């Protein structure tokens, strides 16, 4: 349930970035705000500096791939707002999720933006949080999201000569070079 701190945060966001807020939700008692992608860094900076919020710790930063399944469900115009609020859920997007934490009041918030899956691009957060450096590298490694202005955007966990972004749905999970998994052995 929304507590007073949650309401305060939403009000602070809406006060300055009314036009950027697409959706405010409580997901498993966790305040989640879906935003337009354009001013995301500015918004996080504001939440960092505002004495009422002071979200000065970046818990995590990651991506979610919502694969493109059906042309009719896809709308990039209006910054995915139509899709995000519809029941069917988003398709054809890579969402970037920022989780922020105020260590003093022990309050958290989740911010979510949607990028088109063909060319996911977003400014880097490393100028606000140094901890975002490796998180953005990991997100690039697994989802191919380009973080503009990142000081060292290269793979961090996978082998350097990998040519795919393995967590994107268009790439199969299995190793494609394996020879012992013949279909007939598995009744396929």
């Amino acid at each position, binding site marked *: 349930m929304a507590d007073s701190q949650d309401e305060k945060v939403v009000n602070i966001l809406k006060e300055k970035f009314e036009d950027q807020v697409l959706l405010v939700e409580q997901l498993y008692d966790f305040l989640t705000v879906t935003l337009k992608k354009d001013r995301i860094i500015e918004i996080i900076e504001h939440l960092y500096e505002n004495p009422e919020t002071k979200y000065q710790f970046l818990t995590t930063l990651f991506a979610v791939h919502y694969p493109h399944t059906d042309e009719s469900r896809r709308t990039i115009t209006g910054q995915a707002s139509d899709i995000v609020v519809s029941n069917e859920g988003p398709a054809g997007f890579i969402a970037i999720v920022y989780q922020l934490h105020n260590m003093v009041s022990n309050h958290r918030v989740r911010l979510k933006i949607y990028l088109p899956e063909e060319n996911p691009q977003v400014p880097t957060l490393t100028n606000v949080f140094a901890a975002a450096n490796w998180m953005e590298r990991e997100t690039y490694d697994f989802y191919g999201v380009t973080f503009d202005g990142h000081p060292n955007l290269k793979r961090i966990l*996978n*082998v350097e000569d990998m040519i795919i972004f393995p967590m994107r749905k268009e790439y199969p*999970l*299995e190793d494609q070079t394996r020879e012992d998994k013949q279909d007939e052995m598995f009744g396929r």
Partner: protein
Amino acid sequence: MGGLSMEDITTTRRNISIGEKPDGIEGTGFFATSLEKVVGMARKNSIWPLPFATSCCGIEFMATMGAHYDLGRFGAERLSFSPRQADLLMVMGTIAKKMGPVLRQVYEQMAEPRWVLSVGACASSGGIFDTYSVLQGIDRIIPVDVYVPGCPPRPEQIIDGVIKIQRLVETESLRRRDSPEYKAMLNKYGIE
């Protein structure tokens, strides 16, 4: 000594046997055989294993080295944690693709003659980890002499694998490592 009688102790002693000598010509005061057989016998009974343990198969290996199963009974008591003094590379566990070059370098640092024992499903074939990040069998980067199946294999199976390695060590020709076939096999893996 609990319930042990003198007879029990002597019976235990009687069960200890020494290794068989190789075939040869024997007479009073001399024994003649081929150098190859003597070297094979010596090598077989003093293998220095290098454990390359990354996961649960490594735990089974620890049991294998422990007092109950005691790989030391087979002359492999002395583990070598440097590849340069090791005879046998025991790869136990999942090898991620990113670790592949490390494993290969360890293999390259071992002096000839060297043997490789692949313990468990993951090292042998990738096992259940049929995924983009896991090497689908170490034989894609280094040659393997004996595979031990199992997930993980029991210590008895690991010992069985080591005994099979011993058989290879014992019967290997002294010139095998100089043969063109052996060099061609290494070249296939891009080594040397």
